[in-house]
C-alpha cells in the first residue's frame, strides 16, 4: 500500500473511532427507522472517507465531521416519518438496563426535536453539543449573529411544542 493511502487509512480509522458517538447521534436524530439509520451512517462514513483527501486542516476535524454528517443527513433523509418504526430504532439503540422512565424521556426528546425542519434540527443539535456559534455559522452557512437569532427562534419553537 502506498504511503499516502496508508496515512489516509490510519486517519480514517482514528477519525471514526474518535467521532463514532457524534456520527451515531446525528444519524439517530435524522433516521426514521433502523434501516434508515444504518443507511445514513454508512453514507456519512463513505463521505468522510472520500472527503478526507480534500480536508485541508483549515478547520477543526470535529467541525468537519459535523459538516459531513449533517450535510449527509439533511440532504439524503427521504423517508417519511413512521413513529411506530422509531420503537425498533430505540430498541436497538438503548441499553437493556435503562429504566422505562429514562427510555420514555429519551424518546420524548427525539420526537420533540424531530418536529423541527431538517435545517433547524441541525442548528439545535449543534447547540446541544455546545458547538461555538462561529463554528455553527460555518457549518450552516450563516453569520454568527444569524446563528444567535435563528437559535432563539428554534428554541422558542421547541418550548412551544414541549408545552403544547
Amino acid at each position, binding site marked *: 500500500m502506498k504511503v499516502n493511502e496508508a496515512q489516509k487509512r490510519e486517519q*480514517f480509522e482514528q477519525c*471514526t*473511532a474518535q467521532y*463514532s*458517538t457524534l*456520527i*451515531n*447521534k446525528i444519524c*439517530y436524530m435524522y433516521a426514521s427507522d433502523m434501516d434508515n439509520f444504518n443507511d445514513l*451512517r*454508512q*453514507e456519512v*462514513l*463513505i*463521505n*468522510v*472517507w*472520500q*472527503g478526507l483527501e*480534500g*480536508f485541508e486542516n483549515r478547520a477543526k476535524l470535529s467541525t*468537519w465531521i459535523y*459538516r*459531513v454528517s*449533517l*450535510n*449527509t443527513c*439533511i*440532504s*439524503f433523509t*427521504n423517508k417519511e416519518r413512521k413513529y411506530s418504526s422509531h420503537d425498533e430504532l430505540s430498541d436497538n*439503540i*438503548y*441499553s437493556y438496563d*435503562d429504566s422505562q422512565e*429514562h427510555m420514555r*424521556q*429519551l424518546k*420524548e*426528546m427525539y420526537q*420533540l426535536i424531530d418536529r423541527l*425542519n*431538517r*435545517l*433547524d434540527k*441541525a442548528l439545535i443539535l449543534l447547540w*446541544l*453539543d455546545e458547538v461555538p456559534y462561529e463554528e455553527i455559522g*460555518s*457549518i*450552516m*452557512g*450563516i453569520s454568527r449573529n*444569524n446563528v444567535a437569532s*435563528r437559535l432563539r*427562534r428554534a*428554541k422558542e419553537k*421547541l*418550548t412551544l411544542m*414541549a408545552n403544547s
Partner: protein
Amino acid sequence: MELDELKNKWKALDEHIKSQDNKIQHLTDQIIAGKVKSPLDTLRRHCIIAAIFVPFMLPFFFWAYDFVGLTCGESQKLLLYTLTWLFVGFTFVREVYFVFDLKGINISKATAVESLQQTIRFRNHYKWGVTIDLIIGIVFLAVAFTSMNQMFMFGGIVGGIIGSLVGIKMYRFYNRTINNLESALREWNEES
C-alpha cells in the same frame, strides 16, 4: 421539557449510543476495502455505463428497421428516423450531463444550506431528464411500431404502457422528495 433538561438528555444519549460504536468499526473496514459504495457513486457509474452503450442503440435500431421492414410511407419513415436520433441522442446527452452534474454535490465542503440546494438542483435535473426522455420514448415507440407490422405494434403498446407507469411512479417519487427538501429550504429562508 425545559431546554436545560433537553441538553442533559442529549448528553445522556452518548452512553446509549456507545453500543453502536463497534458496528462503525466493521463498516470502516468494509469502506476501506472498497466493499461498499455510496448511492451517488453507484448512480454515477450507471450513468457512465449508459453513456458508453447508448450510442450503440442507433445502429441497432437502423438494422432492426431493415430486418423487420417498414410498412409506412416516406414522411413517416423520415419522422421515425428523426425520432430515433432524438431519443438516442437525448438519452446519451442526459447520461453524460448527470455524470458532471453529480460533481456539483460536494458534501464535505459545502455548508448545510448549500448542500441542500445542490441536492435539490440535481434531483430536479434528474426528474426532468427522465421525464422528457420518457415522453420522447413513448412518441418514438408509437411511431416506430405503427411503422411496422401488427405484432410489433402490440409490443410497442405494451412497452409504452409499462414505460409510462414506471415513469409516472418515478416522477411522483422525485416530486415528493424534492418538495420535501424545498419546503425545508423555503421555511429556513423565510426566517432570515
